[in-house]
């Protein structure tokens, strides 16, 4: 299946992926409305340490420990995509405790949030990839 992959050599550390992610998942039609004067909570995060920059988002592991560990049954694997059911999630954060990549975070509505490859919003393909100016993030089969 197609996943989001990162090539840190090409990452500029511009954080555009974070903004595009937050906008894509905001439900708003205008980026200004979605992001202005707000602390964004994207599902992709750029790490910076010295001259190293790279973006990290859910790996959609083949055998995801978050899904196996979910105590409510809110996380499941749907056609290879580790998917969160926000209605079922009670925000216990067990998935945050087990994800080895730190890619699930507390959401604003009591449930956790994570990358679902933009399949659950109107963009339909990963907005982080679409907006990356240097092709440091790609969406492909590997």
């Amino acid at each position, binding site marked *: 299946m197609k996943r989001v992959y990162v090539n*840190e050599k090409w990452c500029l550390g511009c954080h555009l992926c974070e903004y595009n992610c937050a906008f894509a998942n905001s439900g708003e039609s205008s980026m200004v409305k979605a992001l202005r004067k707000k602390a964004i909570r994207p599902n992709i995060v750029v790490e910076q*340490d010295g001259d190293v920059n790279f973006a990290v988002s859910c790996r959609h592991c083949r055998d995801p420990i978050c899904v196996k560990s*979910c105590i409510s049954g809110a996380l499941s694997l749907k056609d290879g995509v580790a998917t969160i059911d926000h209605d079922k999630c*009670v925000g216990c954060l067990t998935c*945050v405790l*087990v994800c080895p990549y730190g890619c699930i975070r*507390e959401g604003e509505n009591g449930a956790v949030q994570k990358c679902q490859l933009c399949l659950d919003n109107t963009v339909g393909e990963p907005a982080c990839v679409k907006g990356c100016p240097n092709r440091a993030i790609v969406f492909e089969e*590997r």
Partner: protein
Amino acid sequence: MKNYVIIGNGAAAVGAVEGIRSVDAEGSITVISAENRHVYARPLISYLLEGKTDLKRMLYRPEDFYSKNGVRVIFGKKAEKIDPAEKTVTVEGGEKIRYDSLCAATGSSPFTPPTEGLDTVEKRCCFMTLDDAERLEKFLDPSANVLIIGAGLIGLKCAEGIIGRCAEITVCDLAPRVLSSILDFDCAKIMQNKLEKMGIKFLLDDTAVKFEGGKALMKSGKTVDFDVLVTAVGVRPNVSLIKEAGGEVGRGIAVDEKMRTTLEDIYAAGDCTESTDITSGQKKVMAIMPLAYIQGHCAGVNMAGGDERIDNALPMNSIGFGGLHCMSAGSPDGELFEEKNETSIKRLFVKNGLLTGFMLIGNCDRAGIYTSLIRNKTPLDSVDFELLKKAPALAAFGREYRGEKLGGAV
């Protein structure tokens, strides 16, 4: 065609079903469920009482789970006996079910120490099952004073769940701190302060020694007036079926890394088992839901002829009260690195060059990166531990690791 039988209908049983089906699409699977309910998420019963979930949303698997996986479920009946020579399980009512491969996913039961006058308390319940939660709900009204015995995960989640639905809650525990199984004193104090601010009263280092006419006489000599009593002292693994069948049992059912018991073609998984905590090397009952599922899955794969092993189990917990989260994993043993302020704390424990445990309260972001360091026994000299002390980050792992994990399918 193989006959698989699973005793139990919780997370470990679901793991076993999914494990079996990942290898064998054909074999017949029978689940024996003492509870007359579709599999649900037991830890969510407190959220149910709090109004944060409902019976439909708290199902652990969708309603078509059994039919999709071709599982026959015997609801509302207990397994009474395993005959390992005959390879049968006898179910309440007399039905004998033949198995080729069996999994005991029998869970645990609440343990309440005998106390004088306990039987005279009418409004009394445990807090393990949906039946318990429904029973407790009937006792609740805005004038009810509730006494909860046990300040562990179950007792405190219960308190949080009902705080808005009764007059007053007092929680007592023989231990001198709350959440004593997962937190040390300082961390427990922060959580206790939070719970007290929510209106919950505590009597620690204390427990009820006698119940009489709506009063609990405490070990300390104090008395507590109460209308409703919740007993949440602890749980014990349900080992009797395996024990009576001649299987080795310690505190829990003894299993190897393929989740095999000492009896041929009999596996066990979940809260009824004991296994080795890699951070202490000790055999223990680690009654945690993620491990129950993972063990069940492992058992299922092996029952169906596949090969799966678990050699990296560790105790861990994530729990929150009133929006304040705490997490812990591994053993609080070794050299301590700490960061703290009034409402948040981070404690990392390092021994022999490995992260052996941590406790986090408040900021728990990306804690799984710490957990994976413990689980994988990553030598800390192979990562930038100074960076990790500040916050969990993949930047600490070096280019090669990131290339593999972020640049390839994992």
